[in-house]
């Protein structure tokens, strides 16, 4: 069976079923038909045999009847008184004449009388030979036994009958002879439907036909076969002629001593049987064939019915393999296949669900239900293909929420999540077409793809969004002011690939963030030219060397008492050709290239100079200077500061050092070492821009800082936005709990100042108190501020210089109205 399978590989179950069942059926049919064929042959032989046997009886009967008839007729003669008288008196002539007339009357070929003594023989003219051969014993024996008697007389076969002549006892016999010829054979054939042939031999082995129904050719064949046939002992024999086969039955009717023999042959053509047999067999084979065809059709149909669901399942699985789960399987059956179908459907749905989930996880942002970065990038890719072929434009807009981290940290993750969902909703609701894609790329970064949208459409969309977001957002029973940075790129104007498009949008968004503009559409100038940067650095070094830098101070007060405390040192660059350059235009490069150390140095020296000046005038103020990452990683900084302070005769209390969360992160160990050293030296350290970074209060607590500066973005609108107010309040409370002083930046009106006072904020700065001022203006402010301190007359006040702090907050006049 293993080899069988190896040989035959079925592609379909149906074929296998059909072939196997048909093979079995055909084998069974063959197993039935072969014995049947033999049985039929046997049966037909039996029938032939029977027919021959019946034929034999019939022919015997016929001859016997003939004999009886003749005997009857002869008896009449034998009983005739006159004939008997003639016999009794030995009247030979009378006897002979009576026999002649009788012979004529009953058409006997032979007629003679023989006396009981055997001596008296009277015969008719043509019966001499017969009379010569007479054998009285045979005559009476045959008569008494009632058997048939044959003889060959004068070379001709005869059937002999005899009747006794009684007077009243037997005194003699009348013997009559009838030739066995064609007529008799025909008679027999008529009754038996068998061919009858009489053959005789008058001398040994010299056979000749003396009468029969066979054709000459068949007779010849028979004569030729006869010697052999006679030696065989079977009751039924077979003979093959040129074009026919026969069953034969031979019977010797008479056998003389001198080789004389008379044989009757009954024979039947086998061809007839063979033909019938073949017809029957052919019919059976036809029926079998039809049956098998019918069976094949039935199996084919049934297996189709049976296998169809499996095929459907297979198709379905192949569809599923391709990722198409939409096709329901319909198998209207209650059997196992039906169950399988149902289970398949269940499985299909389960897989579909899972696939959808995986797809969602892979391509969707779980929080907002929007697309994720991956999916968005794919969408952009497709859009590029589609729009490239149509020569159309589309837009990518990137949104970023300002100060999302502190919102999340202080108002809770749930709040942050709701805010993100809300923004996503807003973005989604305002797209132009369902094919537009809204995605959340990062924590607080969203992107929108507007199909078939050029700059005008993009602007319209952005404007809509900005207008909506200008209204305070109401989330979880709190209103919060959401400000976003928005960058826009247009395909194909600003990029041909999805990466470049998105990167450029990011760049534009960054620009929007820096410039606090509503949105920025990408333009090439946003890409800072390296050479320009190098020029800038050279210029900057020159600026330090040639004193082009100016120190600006933003005033700071104690909120509770409104007393002026001093200010934050900020830098300005008075470029020989470009005029006033703001820090955001050179501080980032300065930080990247290390020039920032020089700037910090300059700032510290300048601040110390100013402080020393005030100290001489007896004015006690503090000035805060921002330290960069590089500064914090500089182990020499504490030493340098000590030297500087010593030069100006200042204590560590005069100078405040502001550090950002970010600056601590680059090399935390190193930074902390430096910070601790500074703290140990007695410097007052403040965390600047608190809320925009990513550090937690818990981390800050480990730092030796004394002060926390709340980023202005939280403070500016806290009188309007309860969310902002909550953040500020939480921050103040937490800071106080940690023993830190809190400084609020960005106080722009009296309300905020009042609110901060109520919240217990320690210090404050902002436009409402004073914008960044030149040294001279600051000096003036000190004297004019309501909580002003006594300032000695302006001797030695440093020349006016303009400073702003790094990090670019609040340097621009217009920023007062922007977030």
């Amino acid at each position, binding site marked *: 069976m293993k080899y069988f399978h190896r040989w035959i590989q079925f592609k379909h179950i149906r074929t296998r079923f059909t072939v196997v069942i048909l093979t079995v059926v055909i084998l069974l049919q063959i197993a039935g038909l072969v014995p049947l064929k033999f049985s039929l042959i046997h049966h037909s032989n039996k029938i032939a045999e029977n027919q021959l046997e019946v034929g034999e009886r019939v022919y015997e009967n016929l001859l016997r009847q003939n004999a009886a008839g003749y005997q009857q007729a002869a008896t009449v003669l034998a*009983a005739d*008184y006159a004939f*008997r*008288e003639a*016999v*009794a*008196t030995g009247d030979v002539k009378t006897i002979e004449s009576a026999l002649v007339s009788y012979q004529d009357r009953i058409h006997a070929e032979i007629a003679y009388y023989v006396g009981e003594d*055997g001596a008296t023989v009277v015969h008719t003219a043509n019966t001499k030979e017969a009379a010569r051969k007479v054998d009285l014993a045979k005559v009476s024996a045959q008569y008494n036994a009632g058997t048939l008697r044959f003889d060959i007389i004068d070379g001709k076969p005869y059937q002999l009958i005899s009747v006794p002549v*009684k*007077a*009243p*006892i037997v*005194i003699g016999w009348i013997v009559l002879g009838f030739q066995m010829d064609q007529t008799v054979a025909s008679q027999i054939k008529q009754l038996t439907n068998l061919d009858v042939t009489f053959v005789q031999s008058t001398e040994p082995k010299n056979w000749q036909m003396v009468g029969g129904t066979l054709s000459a050719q068949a007779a010849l064949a028979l004569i030729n076969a006869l010697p052999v046939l006679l030696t065989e002992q079977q009751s039924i024999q077979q003979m093959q002629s040129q074009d026919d086969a026969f069953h034969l039955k031979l019977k010797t009717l008479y056998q003389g001593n001198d080789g004389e023999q008379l044989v009757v042959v009954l024979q039947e053509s086998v061809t007839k049987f063979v033909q019938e047999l073949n017809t029957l067999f052919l019919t059976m084979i036809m029926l079998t064939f039809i049956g098998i065809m019918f069976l094949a059709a039935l199996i084919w149909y049934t297996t189709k019915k049976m296998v169809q669901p499996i095929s459907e399942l297979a198709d379905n699985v192949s569809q599923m393999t391709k990722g198409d789960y939409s096709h329901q399987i319909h198998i209207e059956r209650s059997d196992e296949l039906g169950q399988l179908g149902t289970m398949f459907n269940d499985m299909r749905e389960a897989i579909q669900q899972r696939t959808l989930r995986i797809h969602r996880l892979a391509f969707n942002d779980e929080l907002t239900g929007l697309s994720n970065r991956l999916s968005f990038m794919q969408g952009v890719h497709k859009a590029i293909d589609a729009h490239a072929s149509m020569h159309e434009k589309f837009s990518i807009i990137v949104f970023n929420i300002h100060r999302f981290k502190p919102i999340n940290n202080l108002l809770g993750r749930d709040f942050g999540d709701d805010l993100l969902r809300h923004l996503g909703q807003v973005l989604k609701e305002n797209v132009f077409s369902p094919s537009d894609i809204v995605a959340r790329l990062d924590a607080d970064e969203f992107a929108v793809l507007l199909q078939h949208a050029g700059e005008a459409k993009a602007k319209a969309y952005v404007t809509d969004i900005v207008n909506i977001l200008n209204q305070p957002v109401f989330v979880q029973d709190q209103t919060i002011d959401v400000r976003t940075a928005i960058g826009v790129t247009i395909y194909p104007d600003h990029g041909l690939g999805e990466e470049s498009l998105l990167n450029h949008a990011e760049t534009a968004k960054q620009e929007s963030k820096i410039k606090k503009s509503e949105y920025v559409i990408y333009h090439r100038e946003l890409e800072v030219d390296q050479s320009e940067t190098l020029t800038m650095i050279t210029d900057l070094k020159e600026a330090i060397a040639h004193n082009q830098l100016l120190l600006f101070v933003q005033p700071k007060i104690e909120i509770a008492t409104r007393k002026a405390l001093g200010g934050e040192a900020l830098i300005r660059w008075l470029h020989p050709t470009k005029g006033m350059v703001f820090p955001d235009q050179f501080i980032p490069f300065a930080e990247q290239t290390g020039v920032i150390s020089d700037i910090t140095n300059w700032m510290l020296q300048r601040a110390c100079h100013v402080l020393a000046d005030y100290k001489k005038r007896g004015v006690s103020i503090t000035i805060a200077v921002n330290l960069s990452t590089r500064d914090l990683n500089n182990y020499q900084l504490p030493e340098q500061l000590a030297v500087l302070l010593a030069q100006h005769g200042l204590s560590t209390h005069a100078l405040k050092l502001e550090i950002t969360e970010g600056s601590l992160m680059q090399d935390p160990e190193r930074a902390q070492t430096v910070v601790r050293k500074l703290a140990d030296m007695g410097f007052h350290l403040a965390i600047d821009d608190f809320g925009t970074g990513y550090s937690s209060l818990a981390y800050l607590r480990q730092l030796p800082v004394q002060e926390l500066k709340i980023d202005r973005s939280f403070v500016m609108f806290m009188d309007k936005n309860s969310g902002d107010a909550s953040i500020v309040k939480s921050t103040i409370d937490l800071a106080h709990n940690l023993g830190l002083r809190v400084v609020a930046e960005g106080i722009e009106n009296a309300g905020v100042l009042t609110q901060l006072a109520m919240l217990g904020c320690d210090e404050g700065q902002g436009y409402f108190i004073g914008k960044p001022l030149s040294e001279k203006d600051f000096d003036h402010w000190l004297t004019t501020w309501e909580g002003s301190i006594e300032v000695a007359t302006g001797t030695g006040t440093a020349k006016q210089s303009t400073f702003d702090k790094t990090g670019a907050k609040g340097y621009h006049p217009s920023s007062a109205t922007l977030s």
Partner: protein
Amino acid sequence: MKQRPAHSIVLTLPFLVAACFVHAAELTFTVTDASGKPVPQAVVAVFDGKSAPTTNTATGKIIQKNRQFNPDVTVIQTGTAVNFPNEDTVRHHVYSFSPAKKFELKLYTGVATNPIVFDKAGVVSLGCNIHDSMVGFIYVVDTPLFAKTDANGSATLSVPAGAVSYQVWPAGKLKFALEQKIKVEGNATVKVALP
């Protein structure tokens, strides 16, 4: 077929001794067939050569009754006349084609007109032309010494002493058996075994 029965004769010694002293003796014939069964109705005739046939005036009678000859076997001496009275209501046509006596009594009832005289020794077979089943035999012998065996196949004849011959044949036989010669010297039993 020719029948030649072999007669075996057994003479017991006492009879032989007694025969020397008497002129007539009793001969008892016991006839058996080949298997030893007694044969009844067998005809026994003894010829002494002296009792030559004289004029015989005896008459016999064979009755036809119930379509049978009665008796069916009759022994008569030569010259005996036999009547054939018909006691049936139907007619009979009695005939004989036998060489010893051919005759024909045409259809008659009652007693035929003339008795038939059998003047020649021989066997006469009687038949009826109307009724084929009627068969009868008349044995015509040239001696007055004859008898038919009884049911035991035995017949006794009183014969003169001296050399005699005898013939035995069973009923229905047309031919005489060959004569057997014996010497009669007293009462004796002759055993005849038919072939």
